[in-house]
């Protein structure tokens, strides 16, 4: 078997592997469905456990290592041996890029000039350095650009809901208008498909996510840019690609070329998605190469091959010169970006955003942001759909991190799924009985709207939905004089702050749909003792000096960030 034939077989194997991995990624994504109030049974955060970028950044930000995330070490070890095959063979985002790039030739002429190495490819290393510096200083912004986070967030928060809306529009359109020819009804065809979609794929009621336009646009742009340059994202931006590149400086498996066979046809240049310079003997860029074997398969003269070379031998390869000054500038840029994000009062615990209601088990804000990779797993699994990506609520530092928006959905009492699926434990995996008591906020009545207060009408909707077994909303019976002078005895609701967990179902179910008459704010949240205005205990005056009235001895200001 010739070198080229062998390479072409390997390329087919690679394509099969890529398809399979993308399939597993999408399967795990759809398997992340709410189930009985416990975690989904499939290992839905598997890809994040495997992500060395998430592993290292979480480690740097928090100085702790989670056992399972050490799977990322396997990826690093593989990279040391084979180079960036992770990018070429495994990464599901990379596979999507490949798919889009495959139609590229129909849109534009592909010339060696556009396929050759560009110094702009160094940009990803600058991005990586800046992000790592931010991480060391405690800001986990990796998630905004990490390929798994970005892909998961984009598909689960935008693509899947959009597909659900389309399916629903078609199926319900057919169902309600019922076009038929005699006994043949079109709905007999669409209904089983819709049922399958709802039960197997969507698995929830229709989901909506606020502020996802930007997520969708960035995702679309990342894919469309493949028409400009093959695997644009992977070449120029991807911080995970950059990290793996640093581990691929001297892999054991290296591209070798026979200069005597090269007729400078540049077929290999056109075949290379990574612009790794296969066409220049001794100038092949190991840190850029995806190990995809396209170049080997493209060479008419059998002049290229991957060969095992001991690491002791300095590679016959070129190197991307990042440059000390540029690396330093990137680091400074990271510090500048971090500082800019931290200027805000909320970032310094001077103020607390009442709308920033974090899921139950979320760590104190600073610790939370050190871990959250903005992947969207928690938002996707939330059975009520109440967990939404932040936009400005948590500052730029907390962009796309989860917050509960009770106007959309509430924290379901019999559920702790968000903490179970969180890949970095930014949301702690609380046992269900602990989660049921976890306080994430406090319900507040707007008596200018609440029906008994403002309109003298009966309404008990908030109380009946309050999930606390002995009710955090109670009634005071009071008389209300009506317009005609008659007197009605009505139930006036009141919140018991000791019992209220801030789950938000009262706000979701309130008869007012524009701005509920009972709203949940972040006050009283467990994670911030300084944001707890109300003394705990049913009688706060009983023994003010006996036990710690704050229920927490360590104040936030002294926690050392």
């Amino acid at each position, binding site marked *: 078997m010739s070198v080229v034939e062998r390479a072409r077989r390997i390329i087919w194997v690679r394509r099969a592997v890529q398809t399979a991995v993308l399939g597993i990624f999408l399967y795990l994504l759809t398997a992340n469905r709410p189930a009985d*109030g416990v975690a989904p049974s499939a290992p839905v955060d598997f890809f994040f456990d495997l992500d060395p970028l998430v592993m290292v950044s979480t480690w740097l930000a928090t100085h702790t290592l989670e056992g399972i995330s050490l799977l990322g070490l396997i990826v690093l070890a593989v990279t040391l041996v084979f180079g960036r095959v992770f990018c070429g063979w495994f990464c599901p985002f990379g596979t999507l890029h490949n798919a889009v790039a495959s139609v590229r030739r129909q849109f534009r002429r592909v010339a060696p000039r556009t396929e050759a190495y560009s110094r702009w490819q160094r940009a990803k290393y600058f991005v990586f350095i800046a992000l790592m510096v931010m991480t060391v200083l405690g800001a986990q912004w990796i998630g905004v650009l990490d390929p798994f986070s970005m892909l998961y967030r984009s598909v689960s928060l935008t693509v899947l809901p959009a597909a659900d809306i389309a399916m629903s529009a078609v199926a319900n359109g057919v169902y*309600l208008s019922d076009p038929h020819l005699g006994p043949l009804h079109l709905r007999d065809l669409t209904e089983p498909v819709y049922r399958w979609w709802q039960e197997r794929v969507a698995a929830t009621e229709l989901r909506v996510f606020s502020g996802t336009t930007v997520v969708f646009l960035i995702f679309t742009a990342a894919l469309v840019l493949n028409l400009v340059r093959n695997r644009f994202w992977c070449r120029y931006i991807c911080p995970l690609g950059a990290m793996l590149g640093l581990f691929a400086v001297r892999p054991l498996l290296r591209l070798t070329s026979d200069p005597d066979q090269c007729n400078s046809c540049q077929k290999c240049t056109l075949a290379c998605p990574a612009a790794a310079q296969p066409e220049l003997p001794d100038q092949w860029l190991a840190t850029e190469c995806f190990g995809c074997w396209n170049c080997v398969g493209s060479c008419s003269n059998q002049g290229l091959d991957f060969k095992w070379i001991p690491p002791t031998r300095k590679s016959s390869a070129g190197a991307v010169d990042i440059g000390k000054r540029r690396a330093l500038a990137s680091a400074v840029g990271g510090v500048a970006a971090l500082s800019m994000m931290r200027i805000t009062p909320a970032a310094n615990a001077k103020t607390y955003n009442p709308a920033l209601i974090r899921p139950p088990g979320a760590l104190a804000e600073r610790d939370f942001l050190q871990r959250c990779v903005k992947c969207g797993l928690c938002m996707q699994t939330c059975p009520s759909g109440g967990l939404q990506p932040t936009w400005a609520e948590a500052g730029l530092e907390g962009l796309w991190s989860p917050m509960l928006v009770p106007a959309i959905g509430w924290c*379901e009492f019999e559920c702790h799924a968000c903490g179970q699926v969180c890949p970095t434990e930014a949301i702690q995996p609380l046992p269900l009985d602990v989660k049921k008591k976890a306080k994430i906020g406090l319900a507040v009545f707007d008596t200018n709207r609440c029906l008994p207060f403002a309109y003298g009408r009966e*309404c008990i909707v908030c109380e*009946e*939905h309050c*999930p*606390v077994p002995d009710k955090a909303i109670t009634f005071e019976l009071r008389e209300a004089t009506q317009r005609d002078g008659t007197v009605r005895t009505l139930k006036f609701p009141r919140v018991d702050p000791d019992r209220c967990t801030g789950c938000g179902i009262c706000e979701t*179910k309130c008869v007012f749909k524009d701005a509920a008459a009972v709203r949940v704010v972040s006050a009283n949240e467990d994670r911030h003792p300084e944001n707890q205005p109300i003394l705990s205990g049913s009688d706060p005056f009983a023994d003010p000096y006996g036990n710690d009235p704050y229920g927490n001895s360590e104040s936030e200001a002294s926690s050392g960030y």
Partner: protein
Amino acid sequence: MSGSTRRDFLKTSALVGGGLVTADFLALTRAALAADTLPAMAIARWSETALAGADLTAAAVGLTEAAIASLGGMDRFVKKGDTIWVKPNIGWNRRPELAANTNPDVVGTVVRLCKDAGAKTVKVGDHPCHPARQAYRNSGIAKAAEAAGGKMVYLDQKRFKDMPIGGEFLDKWPVYLEVAEADLVINVPILKHHGLTKCSLSMKNYMGVIGGNRSAWHQNMDACVTDITQFMKPQLTVLDAVRVLTDHGPQGGNPEDVDVRGIVAASTDVVALDALGATLLGHDPAEIGYVAAAANRGLGTLDYASLNPVEKILS
């Protein structure tokens, strides 16, 4: 897709026509009863002495079978090839032991009896306050109904259609299309406490077939529930009082609020059945606003004893 279609027009015509005749509802029911002299109400109880250590699954199945059999069997209501909508209370993501939802074995048995009577399709569904998938599963109803050959339906928000309720208070309101299209709707509520109406019974359970801003109904619950009951023209209602929620209803959550009663009652007269339910919870039926309102409107009788209910004691 809110444009009017031929099917809608036919349905609307039928419903308006139906609304006009419901004023004579009770009279018609009585006439029908006189014709075949079948009982209008049946109460099956687990003997109090045997209740303590009873297997509640077996009890729920036996009681439901006995209650339906005493009414003349499911064949009286279900025709071969019918599409049936069984409407349990699956309002909450709660386990059966907490008595917030209808007993799953009661629901399963009703489904099985429908299938045995020749029903083509038995759909089971509710419009829960909690996420439907969690509520269907945790209530145990999905498992029981599917084992009996039923089909759980998750309501689709786009399939509620404004229907002419023609009530005294409600002119029109969105009702679930598949429910309105069913040949028979069997209401299978659970008896429980309710913070606003004192008890949640059969009529109140119809809140699970409507859409729209349901929270607004609480401002005039009695009229709204009476109107939807009149619109639904109940033919068969099966009241689950195997476990009863005595406080913190309708959601409950505290096992101490649950009382094991071991009763299943069934009736063609939904008002009488609710009067019985109110009595079981220690209320005078006339004090339950919507039950009294429905009786006043002639939808049934508060004096359930006047129906000479068939009583069965099981053990």
